[in-house]
């Protein structure tokens, strides 16, 4: 009954205000760091933080007596709105810094950060101040698990049906498992697992000879499967197989379902091996790594680093949509390239921080394919798609099909637009797939950075990143006329 009444903008604005205050507080981290370091970018962060806090406080103060209880429609508006709003305010430091970016570039960079895509317009990141680099890593870390999930964990008033609908809209996947009956506890546990993994990675990277600053930044962008690096050469810059191996493992961890990971941490290791999606994920990673290793071997490469670490790293980077590079895969030939494009579209497990279609959806579709074959032979048999204790009904299948359709259409539209500006087929398809899947890898024209692309393409890719991160429907409902009535 309540869902039919008008959208209550005051409530949406109030929650959005809370989120902006949160973002303002997050900006103080690079601000303090910059002051501590003695760089010049503290002004940019101070101004940005003040603007953001100010804009956040206004709705919170105006609507301070307003409830925060929201319903489904308001949830969708809030979730899409907040990702855009966060990017609009998050780009301020990039525009105000010593080496300012244009509006298009700053927005592209920020939304690429929040959606954990990791496609950058900065050709030379080593020229940027360390505060800016920290901010880039920080937004990826927050965006990885989800901006609103952070608020649910902090704000007790969202511990109701409104919070649950936001949770469902932000966590990736077909169905959403709660860890606890109460949504706030679930959010806190997820952030706990996420934080612990990140903290574990930092000392491991430092053991490989990375500096503390680089380790922190790299850990945040690895676990969130984001892919912003502090070096121009990405992970290759350190030239260490050890660092590449550690990063691969944590990228793969970031590609796992966090609910599963939480249960595994709490002693249910067997659940991990029994989980079909996780096993498929491992098999895909291992088999594609093997294929590429064989390809490289026949091309005359030798040595463990080239034959095992490099392919594994690149596969992990592509399937988990991280987008780090360790070796120049452009030189590997077309078979590995096509595999990488396929993995970018495929993505890792649902409920992780990765982008792409997700293995769960592909498994449902393959299960359905098998059923259709059986159906052709035995029209009266009842066949169902079922794995990991979940049975998928017709409406799930239809929804996944709709998802895939929009996914492919948007991906093609992006590629079409890019090719209209004269870029070749492979570059266009690769870059569009990379943005849609929140991967951020570049190839050919986008190999070193996305900076050279025309503005129109950058805006298109920004939209693709948002659609990819929020899994399409949460954003698309806003374009439906009856949503607003």
């Amino acid at each position, binding site marked *: 009954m309540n869902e039919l009444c008008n959208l209550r903008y005051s409530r949406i604005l109030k929650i959005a205000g809370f989120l902006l205050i949160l973002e303002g507080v997050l900006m103080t981290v690079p601000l303090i760091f910059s002051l501590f370091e003695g760089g010049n970018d503290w002004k940019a962060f101070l101004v940005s933080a003040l603007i953001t806090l100010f804009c956040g406080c206004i709705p919170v103060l105006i609507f301070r007596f307003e409830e925060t209880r929201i319903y489904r429609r308001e949830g969708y508006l809030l979730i899409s709105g907040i990702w855009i709003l966060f990017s609009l305010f998050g780009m301020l430091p990039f525009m105000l810094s010593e080496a300012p970016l244009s509006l298009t570039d700053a927005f592209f960079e920020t939304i690429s950060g929040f959606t954990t895509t990791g496609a950058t317009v900065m050709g030379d990141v080593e020229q940027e101040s360390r505060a800016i680099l920290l901010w880039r890593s920080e937004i990826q870390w927050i965006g990885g698990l989800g901006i609103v999930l952070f608020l649910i964990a902090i704000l007790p008033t969202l*511990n*109701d*049906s409104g919070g*649950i*609908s936001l949770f*469902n809209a932000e966590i990736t996947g077909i*169905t959403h498992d*709660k860890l*606890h*009956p*109460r*949504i706030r506890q679930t959010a806190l546990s997820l952030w706990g697992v996420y934080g612990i993994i990140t903290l574990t990675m930092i000392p491991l990277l430092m053991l490989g000879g990375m500096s503390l600053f680089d380790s922190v930044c790299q850990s945040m962008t690895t676990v969130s499967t984001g892919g912003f690096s502090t070096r121009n050469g990405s992970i290759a810059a350190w030239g260490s197989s050890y660092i590449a191996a550690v990063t691969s493992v944590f990228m793969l961890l970031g590609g796992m379902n966090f609910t599963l990971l939480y249960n595994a941490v709490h002693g249910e290791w067997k659940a991990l091996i029994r989980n079909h999606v996780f096993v498929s994920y491992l098999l895909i990673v291992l088999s594609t790594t093997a294929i590429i290793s064989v390809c490289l071997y026949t091309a005359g490469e030798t040595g463990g680093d080239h034959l095992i670490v490099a392919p594994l790293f690149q596969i992990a980077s592509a399937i988990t949509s991280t987008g780090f590079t360790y070796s120049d895969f452009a030189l590997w030939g077309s078979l590995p390239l096509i595999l990488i494009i396929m993995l970018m579209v495929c993505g890792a497990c649902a409920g992780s921080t990765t982008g792409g279609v997700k293995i769960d959806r592909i498994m449902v579709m393959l299960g359905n394919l098998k059923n259709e074959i059986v159906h052709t032979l035995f029209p009266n048999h009842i066949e169902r798609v079922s794995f990991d*204790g979940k*049975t998928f*009904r017709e409406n799930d299948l239809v929804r996944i099909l709709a998802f895939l359709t929009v996914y492919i259409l948007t991906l093609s539209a992006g590629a079409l637009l890019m090719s209209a500006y004269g870029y070749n087929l492979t570059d266009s398809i690769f870059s569009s797939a990379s943005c849609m899947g929140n991967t951020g890898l570049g190839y050919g024209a986008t190999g070193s950075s996305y900076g050279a692309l025309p503005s129109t393409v950058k805006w298109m890719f920004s939209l693709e990143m948002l659609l990819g991160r929020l899994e399409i429907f949460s954003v698309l409902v806003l374009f439906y006329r009856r949503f607003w009535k």
Partner: protein
Amino acid sequence: MKILIVGNGDTAIHLAKMLSQENQDVVVMGIDSHVLSELDAHYNVITSLGKDISIEALKRSGASDCDLFIAVTPYENHNIVSSQLGKWLGAKTTIARIDNPEFLSPEASNHFRSLGIDRMVNPEYLVAREICISLGNVWMRSLHKIAKGELCICSVKLSEPSPILFKSIAEFGQITQEFHVALIKRNGESIIPGGSHSFERNDIVYFTFRPGSEKRLGELCGKTNREIKRVIITGTGKIAETVCGMIPDLYGVKVIEPDREKCLRFADSFPSVTVVNADFRDINVQREEGIRDNCAFLALGDSSETNIVSATVAKHIGALKTIAQVEDTQYFDEVQALDIDTVVNKKLLTSSRIYQFLIDSVLDSPRCLAFEDTDVLEIVAQDSSMITRHNVRDLKLSSDMTIAGLTRGGHGMLVNGDSRIEPGDHVVVFSLHGTLRKVERLFR
């Protein structure tokens, strides 16, 4: 507290919704994945798919470490077995919904307790009890005694020719000090009234008062307290049977049922009841059976729609009191606004009963009653409580709570603006949902 609810019918769902708002860890186990996923998507509960008497499913849903195990599937046997399994697996307290009212007798319930079922709830019994209570108070919609019977809460639907209709609460206060207006329900919305609110037609008003003032309240609400002489029941279902078994002998009971076979069976079971084989929708039959003669009309048939229509018609042609059983929870609220004196719903009564049981014994809450969106709390004022520092008028209470009365030294009294709460008083507070914290602050 961990609560496992087994079943996914209306009772289970309603209970899960109520408990999830209490910040309890609620798990709902059922067999209908569609119902469960809807529940999961909107409430703070975990759902799990599984059969009610499957040991594996119960273990998976956490029966072994739950504090409370509630089996409310539609099947009595399943609930009993499920509760036993729950207890065996390690549940601390178990509750089962049952059909046979005999099980509620002290000996039988002792036996069931030894089998591992701590509490049993019988929906038909609850409905029948509700009906019998309301037959005793013709014009009241409900009557609750709280604070060891020292205070009463009763709800009345206002209609012409009540002398207080359209008067404000302040004016009502000048007429009499015997009553406190605690809550007004208007168009499905609950209002804690202040002095400037006035009574509108069809308002459902909750008064608190000392026992003995019922008659005066009836006069003020424009109700004449005529005694019910006869009761006409439609339908011969389980509730009708339970009512006929419980109803006091002073009423002449008639049961109207169109099915001849059912009539004969019913007549065998209840020799003192007059069974009429006729279509109860026929107004002439109702007139013939004396509906105008101080009669209560109980529409207890299987179809909610038929019950609603026949109760409305019966009221129209002159029944003194009408009660309709409405099982569809969807339009339960809407029916309240129609011209039917009392509407009863098995599932809501059952879930409220279980909830009430929780409030009494398990939840850490001072509540003594819970209406749909309003709690009635009974809290003892301490020396340090803020509430004892000023007169009630100067406490500047927020508009979503009211102090309805108190008992001091075992003696009940009402509260007005000039009263002052003393330490040791048991204070009765009406508060809308979500204001519990504000109330606690007053008593800290």
